[in-house]
């Protein structure tokens, strides 16, 4: 029986031949087909669902417009600085909370419950503090990413193997050496996971602030497309935004080695 089984065993099918691949293609074709039918039927208001060709043309025009890259640069600059400021302060707060049980019990609950509140409501305060320019958007992004990074670092620090901490102490490492040689390498995965979540929320905070009050950035372009009722451009910008957000998320995960975490 075993011999017969071995003789009849087939080589694994190529990826494109698998039923899953075919189902995925069928779903994509069905969605795009339905979209095109709705666009052609005029069932919804004119231009609310533009044709795929119109969206493709808008996407091409957007990506070939030099002004788009200036706006993209502004958004990247704001998100980058927000992540730097919010990430550094979140890391410092997380290390302090993770290192001290007293501080964790005194303050971590505040961070835990403030973390999921809608940060965009702080935007009027940020405008008063930092003005209507890039400063208020950077502050929004920084506030947004501070909480997940601080909580993730604090939780990661508590998971560190005590043996590693005792090794550092036995070598008489100073606090800076403990942070750079023991804590950070030992909790690489929680830190990167926190950064990944932080990047996502910093992106949302910054872009929402741009849609509310700005004259540059991708968020501004989206709200401008809404004001001008330029639906194909709005869809094109949203596609670009989602590709950037999901791509950056995957990139941090891959370079941070999150894909290689061994499940023990």
């Amino acid at each position, binding site marked *: 029986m075993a011999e017969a089984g071995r003789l009849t065993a087939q080589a694994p099918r190529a990826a494109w031949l698998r*039923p*899953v691949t075919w*189902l*995925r293609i069928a*779903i994509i074709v069905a969605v795009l087909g339905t979209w095109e039918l709705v666009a052609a039927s005029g069932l*919804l208001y004119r231009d*609310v669902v533009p044709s795929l060709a119109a969206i493709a043309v808008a996407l091409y025009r957007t990506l070939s417009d030099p002004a788009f890259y200036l706006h993209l640069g502004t958004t990247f600059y704001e998100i980058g600085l927000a992540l730097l400021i919010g990430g550094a302060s979140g890391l410092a707060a997380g290390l302090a909370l993770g290192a*001290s*049980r*007293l501080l964790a*019990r*005194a*303050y971590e*609950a*505040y961070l835990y*419950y*403030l973390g*999921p*509140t*809608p940060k*965009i*409501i*702080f*935007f*009027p*305060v940020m*405008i*008063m*503090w930092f003005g209507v320019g890039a400063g208020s958007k950077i502050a929004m992004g920084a506030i947004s990413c501070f909480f997940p990074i601080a909580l993730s670092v604090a939780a990661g620090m508590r998971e560190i193997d005590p043996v590693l901490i005792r090794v550092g102490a036995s070598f008489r490492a100073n606090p800076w050496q403990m942070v750079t040689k023991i804590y950070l390498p030992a909790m690489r995965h929680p830190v990167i996971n926190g950064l990944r979540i932080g990047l*996502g929320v910093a*992106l*949302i905070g910054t*872009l*929402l602030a741009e*849609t*509310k009050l700005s004259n540059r950035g991708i*968020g501004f372009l*989206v*709200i401008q*497309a*809404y004001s001008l*009722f330029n*639906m194909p451009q*709005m*869809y094109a910008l*949203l596609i670009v*935004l*989602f590709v950037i*957000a*999901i791509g950056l*998320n995957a990139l941090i995960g891959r370079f941070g080695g999150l894909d290689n975490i061994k499940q023990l």
Partner: protein
Amino acid sequence: MSKSAAVAQSRWLPAVLGLGSIGVAIAAIEGLIRAGLINRFIVPMPSEIFLAFPRIVSEENVLSRFLLTISEAFAASILVAVFGIIGGVVLYQHKLLRQATETWVAAVAAAPLVLIYPLYLVIFGRSATTIVMMGFTAGVAPTVLKTLEGLSGTRRVLINVGRSFKLTSAQQFWKVLFPSALPTIFVGLRLGLIFALINIVGVEFLINFGGLGQLINELSERYDLAGTYAAICFVVLVSICVFVLMERLERWLRPVG
């Protein structure tokens, strides 16, 4: 036990330290503003913010705004629960569909969906429907994923017991799979409802329509500094109360052991 460990394990000290340091920070800000070191036209005095609370409650119809936000959140929650749980069950029952779409659902859950609010404004207009649909869109994907996780995590032995009793597919689902997955489904519902609430208040603020989010926007546009800060504090307190309530509810519903 060392002295530092005893201090950390004390029941009251951490709470006193936490609340005390917040009180000290508030008093310091009050003092700095009164001394003219912080501009009072940028940061109002904490005492003014405290006094603004009764004013915004009586003059700005806070109760009706609160009820409006809660009713929007409730409508979004019903949609999230119905479509999220049904979506998870459908993906569990159709293995091929699950293999084909699970990564897509995960990508949607991680995507910054709130950014599509201008699109919803075009489709649904500047109305409560936009706000509810935004909450639903943000909350449905995590609920689908957690429902799927809960059903997939049902112990093999429980499924085999159901089979040995020759349960029908419907009986197997209602008597074995669903009760076993319920704790994880509640985790998903809690996540979904939190995402929905965050997006509802955020979109209310952004489109200047609806309940508590709109209140903050209106007060800031009137340059009512103390009122704006008080309204923000109120929304933060409401959010915290809702999260604590949901956490308690989840713990209460979770089966013991």
